[in-house]
């Protein structure tokens, strides 16, 4: 079950994509890259549970079938319903964020998913952004992944408006138009410092955000 999505997952992915299109009319904006079939890590800003659904809706069906979202195990393993959604319905790679109690190293979990040929949706801020800041500081995860698997493309994706559609704690989404802007891939340079790389990746993502006047 590692390489391809199960029938249930494919169906659930298509249904979710249809729903998210009906509610948000989401349209991908390819600004600097296009769908090219290469293995990728899509790294995005994170403010809503709906974020990964929006990104996967924008992908082509074959790419969607092999793309899994990296999510927090503490949240998705709490309760039967959540476990069913995370393990059976959706393609998720669950990582344990709690240092003390964790049983599996998050890096190992993500790397084995990459080695199985999956693309990942990754939120480098590490948690949902509940502040007024547009984007939090990046954690080291993105850098570690880039070091370990340098031939996987790192594609920045700016998610617009999803936090208004489905903010924290909300169950019913408000229909608002959303967009996902995909930017040019960011690659780790030879011997680049961790902090420098993370700041460069963060800037690349932030540059995709529209200005106040709606232009980019």
């Amino acid at each position: 079950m590692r390489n391809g999505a199960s029938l249930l997952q494919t169906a659930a992915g298509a249904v979710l994509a249809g729903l998210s299109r009906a509610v948000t009319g989401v349209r991908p904006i390819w600004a600097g890259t296009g769908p090219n079939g290469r293995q990728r890590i899509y790294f995005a800003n994170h403010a809503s549970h709906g974020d990964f659904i929006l990104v996967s809706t924008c992908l082509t069906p074959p790419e969607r079938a092999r793309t899994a979202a990296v999510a927090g195990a503490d949240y998705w393993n709490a309760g039967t319903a959540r476990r069913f959604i995370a393990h059976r319905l959706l393609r998720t790679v669950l990582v344990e964020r709690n240092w003390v109690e964790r049983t599996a190293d998050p890096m190992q979990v993500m790397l084995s998913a990459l080695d199985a040929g999956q693309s990942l949706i990754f939120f480098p801020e590490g948690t949902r952004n509940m502040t007024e800041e547009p984007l939090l500081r990046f954690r080291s995860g993105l850098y570690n992944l880039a070091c370990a698997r340098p031939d996987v493309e790192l594609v920045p994706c700016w998610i617009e408006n999803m936090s208004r559609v489905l903010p924290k704690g909300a169950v019913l989404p408000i229909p608002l138009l959303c967009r996902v802007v995909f930017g040019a891939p960011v690659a780790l340079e030879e011997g680049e410092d961790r902090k420098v790389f993370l700041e460069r990746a963060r800037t690349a993502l932030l540059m995709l955000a529209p200005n106040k006047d709606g232009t980019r």
Partner: protein
Amino acid sequence: MSDDTTRLFLGLVGVLLTASLVAGVLSLRSPQPLPATLENLNARIKAWWIMVAGISIAFLFGTGGVILLFAFVSFAALREYVTLTSTRHADRWTLLGMFLIIVPTQYYLIWIDWYGLYSIFIPVYCFLAMPALTAIRGDTSRFLERVSEQQWGIMLSVYCISHVPALVTLPIPGNEGRGLLLIAFLIATVQGSDVLQYIFGKLFGRHKIAPNISPSKTWEGLIGGILSASALGAGLYWLTPFSPVEAGVLAGLACIMGFFGGLVASAIKRDRGVKDWGHLIEGHGGMLDRADSLVFAAPVFFHIVRYAWT
């Protein structure tokens, strides 16, 4: 389907085929990349094809189909509108209510033909309930602004647009069973006037009406557009219970209202710093970009016809 309906749609398809052919030849002959005017023309023609297809399918299903179609138009328009407003967390319930309660209720009331309620449901009950609900949530920051934005959005995208399908319910003596054709008449004249104003403006436009809002709206375009659209309306009188002169006057009025609708929509877009309302049809703007003139024309047309013919 009556003979008139068939005639109307054959005519529309003929007009669109001609338009596509002309635009296609122009596009082939012009240098690449296409100039903005031609690009715009192609986009408009594509949008009209989609519009005519959507309306034709709805007409096949009769009144119910048309009501569903315009409920969808309202939903899409409201979604575009709310996206451009500033919403706060405390507005959630009001916003959800707008989409989940107000839109279906308004169109249901039209379906059961309860004129006494659908004409006041939004301006009386919703306009009182919405600020009350927002107030209960306790967030007073920019309260007046938020409430006004929500109410104006409901007015434009739901109340006004719902008067298009409401035309079917008008009990005009001698027009039984031909209500859908009245809708076709209104849409054809208002959309036709948009095009004619655009063409006259491109050909003869010199004096801008409101340069700060829309550089493409000129007096020459407006006057030429309204006169020719009135002639178009008079020529389509066989769709309606009106005489040719009455049809021409009503078409002219609808076009003047349509012009104001377009102007107000442009002012809102300019205020929010966007070029289009949304991206419903790829590269062709959103629902409100195509429906803005109908928004203003529909309720006025509805009430004049209701007053004078029923």
